């Protein structure tokens, strides 16, 4: 099975996020980027499928910055090809609508049976890139997938529903899946292998054509959470906050 895994890079929360002067975006100047967690799971699921059934894994990212490390790490883990799609103003971030159109154009030149994306990215929790890409390619889509197995030319996926329900679905190939969690936690790859990939592997660069961002939501305002009128904010140092919490829990009868 040949599998395509688009990986999105999202803000790394190790650094505090700041809102840009225009008030509708994050300030990306000092932002570090990290692969979105579920995309890492999508890659793991792809590698597990390749180990089980053969085929190939191709990872693809939009060049929004800090991409090379992610791509070389994917190769060190066992991916066969790494593609970086470059485009003007990608480093200012790309909407999911635009990203899906760029990925659609890139996918046209690739052979694949399956596209695995993360079910949703940690930055917008929107989960729209997978279904948009599937719609653009005219392929079936199943989101919130926990496991994939190959059966008689097609695949069977386990999809998670709210309330602890799981459905098994037979899906015709080719298809696009949104992975919530791989069957195993993403693997560790030793640094020596990543360094070797940096020396020996090639990242293929493809220039993006015009992105179609039509339909993307327009951001009116980005702001930090504001406390509601009924919320009581506990101020002070760690000890003061801890004392206040203990007193509060005691008053509500929550402490034995």
């Amino acid at each position, binding site marked *: 099975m040949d599998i395509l895994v688009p990986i999105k890079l999202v803000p790394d929360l*190790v*650094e505090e996020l700041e809102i840009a002067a225009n008030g509708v975006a994050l300030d990306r100047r000092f932002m570090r980027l*990290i692969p979105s967690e579920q995309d890492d799971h999508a890659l793991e699921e792809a590698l597990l499928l390749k180990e089980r059934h053969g085929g190939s894994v191709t990872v693809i990212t939009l060049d929004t910055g800090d991409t090379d490390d992610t791509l070389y790490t994917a190769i060190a883990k066992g991916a066969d090809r790494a593609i970086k799609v470059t485009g003007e103003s990608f480093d200012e971030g790309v909407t999911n609508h635009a990203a899906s159109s760029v990925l659609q154009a890139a996918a046209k030149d690739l052979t694949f049976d399956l596209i695995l994306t993360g079910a949703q990215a940690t930055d917008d929790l929107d989960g729209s890139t997978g279904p948009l890409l599937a719609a653009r390619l005219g392929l079936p889509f199943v989101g919130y997938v926990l496991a994939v197995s190959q059966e008689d030319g097609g695949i069977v996926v386990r999809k998670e529903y709210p309330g602890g329900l799981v459905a098994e679905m037979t899906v015709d190939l080719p298809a696009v899946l949104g992975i919530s969690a791989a069957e195993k936690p993403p693997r*560790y790859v*030793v*640094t*020596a292998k*990543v*360094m070797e990939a940096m020396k020996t592997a090639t990242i293929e660069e493809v220039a993006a054509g015009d992105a179609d961002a039509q339909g993307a939501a327009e951001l009116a305002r980005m702001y930090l959470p504001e406390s509601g009128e009924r919320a009581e904010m506990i101020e002070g140092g*760690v000890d003061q906050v801890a004392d206040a919490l203990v007193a509060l829990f005691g008053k509500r009868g929550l402490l034995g």
Partner: protein
Amino acid sequence: MLISATWRSTAPVEVTVTSTMTSEPTLYDEILEATPHGERLNLCLQCGMCSGICPYGFAMEFPPRSLIAALRAEELTSALDSDLIWLCVSCFACTSVCPVQIPLTTSLLTTFKAESMLRGKVPSELQAALENTRRYGNTLGESPRRRPEWASHLSPPVPLMAEAKEPVDVLWFVGDYASYHPRSQVVSRAMARLLRALDVNFGILGPEENSDGDAQLLSGEKGLYEMLVLKNGKAFAKYQFKQVVTTDPHAFNVIKNEYPRAGVTVPIQHYTQFLAERLDQLKPLLHRELNARVAYHDPCALGRANSNNIYDEPRQLLQAIPGLELVEMAHNRANTICCGGGGGGNWLDGFVWEQAHARTSEWRVEEAVRAGAEILAVACPYETPRFEDAVKSTGHQEELIVKDIAELLSEAMRD
């Protein structure tokens, strides 16, 4: 009658190695070549002292002796299928008792961990610490930019090497835990106060400092270790200083014993050595009496690891505190029991508990209580939080508190 026996041979044993190298080096070859004297593995007489002294040997499928037997028999499948190698906390107990001086910790056990890691058998807690190190240069997954933040409200400020105009006498290698862990930060601030009181001209690397690499190397992640040596080596090379002093025994151990083999050589002391050399200057500053019985826990990395043998200096410092009564635990000096934090063990607590249902840190706390200690004194940034947890989990909160020697000294300086 008391019988004492010396197991170590005094004369170095000559070893001849017949190479069995084919085109692909075997795991056996890798172990032989992992460290200097790795070839001593050939001398193993299967006496089993290593497995007997191993704190988690009882829970391991393949403690060192059995692992060597499996290697020799070329029956490695079950040893490599088992992930119990991760119970090894690199405490160097096996190495220190081996009668033929095989560097078991750094060669055999570390190579097996590396092999286990290549097979994807690394417990997830440790995996996160390694991924954090690769990405952020510290095991805790904190922002490198914030490395010097522990000192941000100290006055006078702790000088950053990048901002210091003059060469310094002491480059203080602070380390990951001492920089980021809230409990260990308290100790770092006490240390800054001691250096000030002794008029030491010092600086820290701040954001330019990376994890020392001891845990990464001993958990078998050699490539990551090499990356860290390169980064720390570059930072050392940028500045002028007479010596490095570190508050972290693991940093001391790896910088002193392993960095030179990677081409980075700097004179380094653990802070207890540095302060013990200045006891004449320090003693008059220690006014406040501390009327308490104190037991000192010897960290593996300062003591038996690579025969660092730093046992007296920490005790000299404690005895300089007026009123303090030093008591010894049943296991002390080279016989110390590991806190469980070495060789990646600091990130394997969940795994170790699952597999062994025991915590060496709890054994240690019980020993301190049995020795009649009211304070467990430590000299390693892992240990304050580890032992404080163990004091709570054993229910000894009313009897025992945990303090770093730097804290006790700093408190004794107060009027």
